[in-house]
């Protein structure tokens, strides 16, 4: 997302785990391909289903989950406003998805130390989209279809086809945190993340 002219185009699902491992905190990416939406309720339901021996409703290997609860589309639109939701609400579930081979997640805000640790050394990237830029981000979503948990409404799992969806890598496989790196030079007082 930094200087869009420097943004790299990347296909998702990621083409290989090496592509994910090569991502670095601070990289600006334009994602194109397919990703899946899920927020806390959907994460919880997926993991409960697994415990009962059911299959996940989405593929996870090298895939990307977008933490979003969109507004309903107007007639003729694929989706309405669709910016990221705060990622820490998914912290209790994310390590298990990383274990299963998930390639990345998109949200906004800090991740818990346990999640950052779970990412270290794995082929997984936590990426942020601009929080609150829902109208603009919705435009990068070309198709949206509910594929599971329809009763959850805005929190249902959707399959999204996206084009040039702008994100910035926050937490990478080396354990770096871009929020820390980016804020540090501007900090004049105590406080911080």
């Amino acid at each position, binding site marked *: 997302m930094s200087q869009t002219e420097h943004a790299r185009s990347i296909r998702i699902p990621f083409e290989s785990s090496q592509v994910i491992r090569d991502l670095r905190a601070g990289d600006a990416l334009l994602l194109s391909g397919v990703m899946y939406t899920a927020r806390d309720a959907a994460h919880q339901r997926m993991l409960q289903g697994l415990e009962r021996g059911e299959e996940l409703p989405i593929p996870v290997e090298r895939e990307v989950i977008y933490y*979003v609860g969109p507004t309903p589309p107007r007639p003729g*639109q694929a989706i309405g406003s669709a910016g990221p939701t705060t990622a820490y609400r998914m912290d209790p579930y994310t390590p298990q998805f990383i274990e299963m081979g998930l390639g990345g997640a998109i949200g906004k805000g*800090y991740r818990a130390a346990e999640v950052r640790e779970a990412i270290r050394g794995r082929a997984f990237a936590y990426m942020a989209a601009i929080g*609150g830029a829902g109208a603009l981000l919705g435009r990068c979503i070309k198709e949206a279809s509910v594929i599971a948990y329809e009763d959850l409404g*805005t929190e249902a799992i959707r399959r999204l086809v996206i084009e040039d969806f702008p994100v910035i890598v926050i937490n990478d496989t080396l354990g770096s945190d871009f929020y820390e790196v980016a804020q540090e030079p*501007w900090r004049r007082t105590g406080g911080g993340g």
Partner: protein
Amino acid sequence: MREVHVDAIASAISEMCQSAGVALTDDMLQALEKAYRDEQSPLGRHAIRILLDNARLATATGVPYCQDCGVAIVFARVGQDCHVVGGALSEAINEGVRCGFAAGYMRASMLQSPLDRRNTGDNTPAVIHYDVVPGDRLELAITLKGGGSENMSRQAMLKPADGVEGVKRFVVETVANAGPNACPPLVPGIGLGGTFDKSTYLAKKAIMRPIGEFNPDPAIAELEKELLVLCNETGVGPQGLGGIVTCLWTPIEVYPCHVTALPVAVNIQCHANRRREVIL
């Protein structure tokens, strides 16, 4: 006694929901434009550019500015010589929210109960604050309050000995702790004094004040200026990507308090600052 019909109330609320959903107020847009000029961090500037583009796009296309269309928070100032006819005032406000959110293709985020977590489907009920005032008018102010920023809000019952330094420390820590979770640039509403509950009410009331308008008490206005500088020294910056514009404004509302107390509340408002008001 002047009469106001519930239908007029419901339609005013509905229109305000729809217009606030897609368009920031002018004071907020100007504040973001100023932030774009002031910000020194290239990444922070870029983030603000995107927010300004998003604002233009939302208004032009009618797609909500943010997907979290928020809790409808209504401040109703009811003139004591104003008579509401045709039904109940609270029901009229809720009817307005129901219609406005449906007509504006806005997201319903309210749940029946915090524990069973079933969505009511129409974003009702609103959170309504009533105030009875002299006169025969009904003033309605509304804000669509997003969850991400609301969740980063905090309250503290400080010790009187903590003094103004304690207040400053608490506000700055709350802003730094909110960081990118709350979608900066922020407008932290600050409630100072009163009781535990009153302080949080004051903080909410503070975010309703237009950006650029200081507290009428010069000493409090000074504190507002100082807090803005301090909050912007945290380095959080736009979207937490680093920079000197973490907050756009730091409005404070004050109320007398008990001799043992120094309550302070910070209600974090994100850049999706979506306010409207009408006088009926």
